[in-house]
């Protein structure tokens, strides 16, 4: 009897799976109640039809972008809950007291924090912005493969659901956000935690690779006529280079996670201590993907800031070619530096020296970009709306992150501070001050283009200042603690170390950031409440320079009635200065738009089932899920009727209606 039960349910049995630890159980109950109440509300207001038709099966790149950002914000709250737990633990778990959590729970919390913040918040915000903005900036109606774009988003969402299921059923990985073997091997992490981590990242990672292909082809093939590469907006340039990096390195993540999973499930010896495995190869491969990944996150943020600074300074971007070359140089060098993550593993001095030098070289193009932004502001009329306030915070804090990065690039110095809180403070400096501030500025800047009204300025600036000061108080002490010999990931430390006061200050800093996040949530709520007063009537609220501001806000689903012809850089600004329209009504012709498709939700649902089945070793369910995925791909691929036409008259009618909406 027992073998049949094991065949059907694998290792899954409900009683064991429910978390025993009080805090995780509390979190699990909280999530379940939250989820049930949302489902209840939607059923109560009978919105399932609306959601299915307009959101679950949409292929509109703008709606998909909005869904990415919603998932990212929800995951930001989850990740920030982990921050509060870590700060409380490290502020109280001193000497005799064990703090609030056991070591195992604490290790699950920081593993989840790292994984969620990088894969679901930063990647989510980034792809959200990319989805919304890129087609509009290059004058296209949609991405190259709309159905694949839907699949990519829903795979990303399936990965997010899988990682959060680990809180309800089973446990999460306790081996850090990059789970080095042999700790993440089956011998030292026998639970399902690491499997949840692997398969959440595999599902989301495959979605990201598909997005890389999709946006690369979009930018290559679907630019408006006349928009040569060197006439593209700089944000689209950063996305083009980022997508080239995505397709060059994400398959390494897929391969490495696959091998680690084979080690755990099939008893293979890729990275095991004995059996002919070589754990150093895992560290090498995961960072060959890892370092380009953090540059994949930061380049779109740089691109967004370039567009923002140019618009708010009412000036051309300073040194456009130099900025493009700086982007390319950063992307090139980011692929030959990965060893600085394991200088201390013991490679030869010539190897360490080479990778140390290539790491320093990246600081040069990054510095160039900062000077170019400052000179863009020089001799301009700079208006300090909240995106610019985020930019000022970025300049002050990111430069410190750059300096500590150059310090960490020197191998002999890195031997001292590797895996210490100094390193933790450095990478938070570059990720929060760089990626998060840049993407927050981008979301505020392009918000009206998607929703039709601007965000509340006051609360936006308050949130920015709270993030800056909170950041200084949260990570200043961490730099000092790192120099005092405090390593990362400590769930307990001795009284004699004298670290507690600094951890208390760090806790205070985290609280400030918390208030900043509350301001951001308030900002959205209040902006929605009095959206009537902040309507963006002209479609060009910030006196923009690039094509996305040429269409009304919120942008119609077909974006441009006729594809604009572009003659120069900052196409929309030129059109405004020379008063030449980007397109004439006579150019409007019948257009083909892709139909909504449920392929994204179907494949992602099945991917979640396969992931869950593999985690709990339910073999038959994994096989059935995989076959179902293949069948649904075949059904979709052999379906020829995937687009519909909109006639010229319908377009003209819609355009007229847009104009009347604001002039009347």
């Amino acid at each position, binding site marked *: 009897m027992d073998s049949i039960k094991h065949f059907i349910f694998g290792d899954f049995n409900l009683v064991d799976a429910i978390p025993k630890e009080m805090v995780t159980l509390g979190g699990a109950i909280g999530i379940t109640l939250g989820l049930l109440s949302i489902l209840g509300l939607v059923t109560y207001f009978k919105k399932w039809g609306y959601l299915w038709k307009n959101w679950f099966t949409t292929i509109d790149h703008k709606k998909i972008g909005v869904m990415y950002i919603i998932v990212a914000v929800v995951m930001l709250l989850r990740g920030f809950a982990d921050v509060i737990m870590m700060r409380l633990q490290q502020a109280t778990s001193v000497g005799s007291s064990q703090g609030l959590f056991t070591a195992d729970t604490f290790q699950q919390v920081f593993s989840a924090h790292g994984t969620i913040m990088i894969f679901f918040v930063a990647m989510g915000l980034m792809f959200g912005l990319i989805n919304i903005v890129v087609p509009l900036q290059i004058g296209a109606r949609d991405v190259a493969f709309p159905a694949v774009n839907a699949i990519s988003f829903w795979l990303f969402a399936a990965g997010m659901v899988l990682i959060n299921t680990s809180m309800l059923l089973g446990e999460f990985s306790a081996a850090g956000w990059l789970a080095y073997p042999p700790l993440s091997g089956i011998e030292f992490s026998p639970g399902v935690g690491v499997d949840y981590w692997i398969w959440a990242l595999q599902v989301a990672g495959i979605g990201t690779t598909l997005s890389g292909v999709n946006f690369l082809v979009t930018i290559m093939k679907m630019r408006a006529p006349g928009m040569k590469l060197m006439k593209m907006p700089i944000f689209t340039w950063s996305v083009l280079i980022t997508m080239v990096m995505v*397709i*060059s390195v994400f398959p390494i993540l897929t391969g490495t996670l696959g*091998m680690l999973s084979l080690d755990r499930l099939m008893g293979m010896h*890729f990275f095991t201590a004995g059996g002919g495995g070589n754990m150093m*190869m895992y560290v090498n491969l995961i960072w060959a993907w890892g370092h380009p990944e953090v540059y994949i996150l930061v380049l779109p943020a740089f691109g967004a800031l370039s567009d923002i600074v140019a618009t708010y300074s009412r000036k051309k971007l300073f040194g456009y070619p130099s900025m493009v070359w700086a982007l390319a140089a950063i992307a090139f060098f980011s692929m030959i530096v990965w060893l600085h993550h394991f200088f201390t593993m013991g490679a030869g001095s010539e190897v360490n020296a080479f990778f140390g030098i290539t790491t320093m070289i990246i600081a040069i193009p990054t510095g160039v970009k900062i000077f170019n932004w400052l000179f863009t502001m020089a001799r301009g009329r700079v208006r300090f709306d909240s995106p610019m306030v985020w930019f000022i915070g970025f300049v002050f804090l990111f430069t410190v992150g750059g300096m500590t990065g150059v310090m960490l690039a020197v191998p002999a110095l890195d031997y001292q501070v590797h895996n210490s809180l100094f390193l933790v403070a450095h990478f938070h400096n570059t990720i929060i001050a760089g990626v998060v501030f840049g993407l927050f500025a981008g979301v505020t800047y392009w918000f009206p283009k998607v929703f039709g009204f601007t965000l509340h300025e006051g609360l936006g600036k308050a949130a920015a200042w709270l993030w800056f000061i909170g950041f200084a108080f949260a990570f200043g002490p961490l730099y000092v603690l790192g120099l005092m010999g405090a390593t990362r990931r400590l769930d307990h430390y001795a009284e004699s170390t004298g670290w507690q006061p600094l951890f208390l200050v760090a806790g205070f800093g985290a609280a400030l950031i918390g208030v900043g996040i509350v301001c951001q949530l308030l900002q959205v709520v209040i902006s929605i409440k009095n959206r009537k007063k902040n309507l963006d009537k002209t479609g060009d609220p910030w006196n923009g320079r690039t094509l996305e501001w040429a269409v009304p806000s919120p942008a119609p689903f077909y974006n441009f009635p006729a594809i604009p012809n572009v003659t120069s850089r900052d196409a929309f600004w030129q059109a405004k200065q020379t008063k030449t329209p980007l397109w004439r009504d006579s150019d409007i012709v019948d257009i083909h738009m892709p139909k909504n498709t449920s392929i994204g939700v179907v494949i992602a649902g099945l991917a979640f089932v396969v992931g869950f089945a593999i985690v709990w070793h339910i073999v038959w369910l994994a096989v059935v899920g995989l076959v179902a995925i293949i069948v649904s791909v075949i059904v979709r691929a052999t379906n020829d009727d995937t687009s519909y036409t909109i006639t010229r008259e319908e377009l003209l009618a819609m355009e007229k209606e847009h104009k009347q909406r604001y002039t009347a």
Partner: protein
Amino acid sequence: MSQVKISTADNRTLLGFWIYLMTDCVLFGSLFATYAVLHQNTFGGPSGQDLFELPYVLVETLLLLTSSFTAGVAILAAKAGRKKQVIGWLVATLLLGLSFLVMEIVEFQEILSSGYSWETSGFLSSFFTLVATHGAHITIGLIWIGVMVWRVWKLGITQGNLRRLMIFSLFWHFLDVVWIFIFTIVYLMGVIGI
């Protein structure tokens, strides 16, 4: 049958699939890099020289090469609009690919029956994974041929079918290129013993 022309949308799909193939290249690259690092860790188990019989693998390689040729001719027949010839060459490709896959499974069976498996050593883990990943791609390709034979038989050579056939031929030729390096690095260098 009239000559079917490739539209701009089709060109975009072909380029998109080509770039997907590039990502697959990098995936195989990471498996090759791991094989290169682990192939000497036999951990007391058999090495390449003990396991591989070159003539057997040569037949496999020639089968796959021929199936790549027949897939190419199938595309030419499709461009010329010859429905029966397309189905004929596709079935030939299917049979050649299937026999390649069967030979590979037989080779795995032999290794398993002599008491070794992917759990024996790092070398065998990376060998099985690298060759089996290629085998999995071949299986997907065979399913794809099956679907295409049915679609062409049912609808003839429509624009959609031609595009899908051309994508399939890209995929099949790409798998043959990957097999060249598996044949060289895994089998030939395994027998040389470097």
